[in-house]
């Protein structure tokens, strides 16, 4: 039997974006339709940082084929992307670039932290580490975390499916509850 994941309390990630009030008017059916459309056409930003980028490419390739979920359209320009997949270690020099890219993306936008480095520093975390941000949470609100070093392509697809469920439930990415 596989080890059971501890129901640890959520480590309070650095609150990056102030919470946005719930929308005042609810269009029940339209909201669901719009959320379903958003969930099924998540255009990721081509944004490989390190080793996980190769596994992200493998997911885009024929064997695992991300296009089956409508997410295979990798948009190079931040203006046309919906989800930013952090694939690899985030170095300190890359921090301002990531923040700028995140601001350039039109909302609703989501982010997936793929690989140990983007969750908690991964194999490069040691006391007094000077070169990397230990976790993508220091820069950007993260919606889905995928552990592994590097996570298998199936894990990234599972992560995207989790993100789709989250969107279908209607939670906007950058408006943290």
């Amino acid at each position, binding site marked *: 039997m596989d080890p059971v994941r501890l129901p640890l309390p959520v480590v309070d990630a650095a609150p990056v974006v102030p919470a946005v009030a719930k929308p005042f008017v609810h269009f029940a059916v339209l909201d669901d339709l719009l959320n379903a459309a958003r969930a099924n056409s998540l255009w990721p930003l081509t944004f490989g940082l*390190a080793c996980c980028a190769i596994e992200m490419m493998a997911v885009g390739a024929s064997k695992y084929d991300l296009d089956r979920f409508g997410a295979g359209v990798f948009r190079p320009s931040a203006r046309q992307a919906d989800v930013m997949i952090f694939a690899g270690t985030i170095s300190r020099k890359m*921090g301002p670039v990531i923040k700028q890219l995140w601001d350039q993306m039109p909302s609703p936008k989501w982010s997936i932290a793929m690989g140990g480095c983007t969750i908690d520093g991964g194999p490069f975390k040691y006391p007094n580490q000077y070169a990397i941000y230990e976790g993508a949470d220091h820069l950007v609100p993260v919606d889905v975390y995928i552990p592994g070093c590097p996570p298998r392509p199936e894990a990234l697809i599972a992560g995207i499916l989790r993100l789709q469920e989250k969107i279908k439930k209607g939670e906007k990415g950058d408006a943290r509850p």
Partner: protein
Amino acid sequence: MRQSAGPTLERTDEADTYYLNMGPQHPSMHGVLRLLLKLRGEEIVTCEPVIGYAHRAHEKMAENRNYIMFIPNTSRVDYLSGMIYNIAFCQAIEKLCSIEVPERAEVIRIIACELNRIQSHLLWFGTFLLDLGGITPFLYCFDDREEILDILDRVTGSRLTYAYGRFGGVTMDVDQDFLVRTLAFVKRIRSRFPMYEKLVGENVIFRERCEGVGVITPEVARQYGVSGPTLRASGIGYDVRRAEPYGGYDRFDFEIPTRTAGDCMARFEVRMAEMEQSCRIIEQAVAAMPEGPIGPKKLVQRLKPPEGMFYFAVESARGHFGQYILSDGSNTPLKLKMRTPSFSNLSAMETVLEGTMVADTIAIVGSIDIVMPEIDR
């Protein structure tokens, strides 16, 4: 301390030129390379590669840890030849502390490293075509690459960043099924080469885009310390496996493919020929697989390295990867410098890219096959 993202763009000094920032996030910048180009129209006046966006402090970690605890870092320095780097670190320590490696382990290591080299060249071929605009060859290469990842997964357990080597051998033995699948893969990849040749090698658009583009003369290669397929495409047949044989490579006969043109097309042909040579090595290695142990029973942890300076070079998919170890006899290195090939190959770009078009820059940088964390360490 606020971290700025590198040189900011100002007005250029020359007339009718402007700075274009092929920034850290760019579809064909192989990770997080940033080219600060000064352009006149579409022609490049000066090009300054700005690196450091994937700096992860490997060398600082090496100085803070025992030798054994640095093993996971090695395959993450250049994750496209992860196996070659992982085995190279183990071989360096074995040479340093003169640890004996059983013959079967050596042959297994050679097969794994050559499979890793083919996989790296395949991925280079795919991304090179992607830079030139052809999308389909990229996906065909990934089909073949997935085959290699499956085979290596059977014995190392991971797909990309391996921790398969230990001081004195490897962690898991190879069974008959692995050997059969490797030979089947070699047969399959050999049937795929003519298809790639027809789809891409002879394609007139590809030839127009590559011939005569980004010529690196042997003199420039020597001045910048260029190594690997990029050097061999400029006519110098230097390959560490032949120049300073290590790990049993002298037992197998294989040629070192070279070309003299030194342009993108020559680099393409050298890498395709190199894949064929790696297949030959694998076939001979599988045929000559000796019986015997694959490594020490107990994990070798406490090392007694002699003091002084040591250098151990290996031929990675991108070129001459040298490890310089300064040891003071303790179980932790005083200094571990990793001389990575792409660092020098990319530094040569400052002269090679002058005067070329923007589209050629993408082709040339793509043709020298760089991996950013290997440059930034």
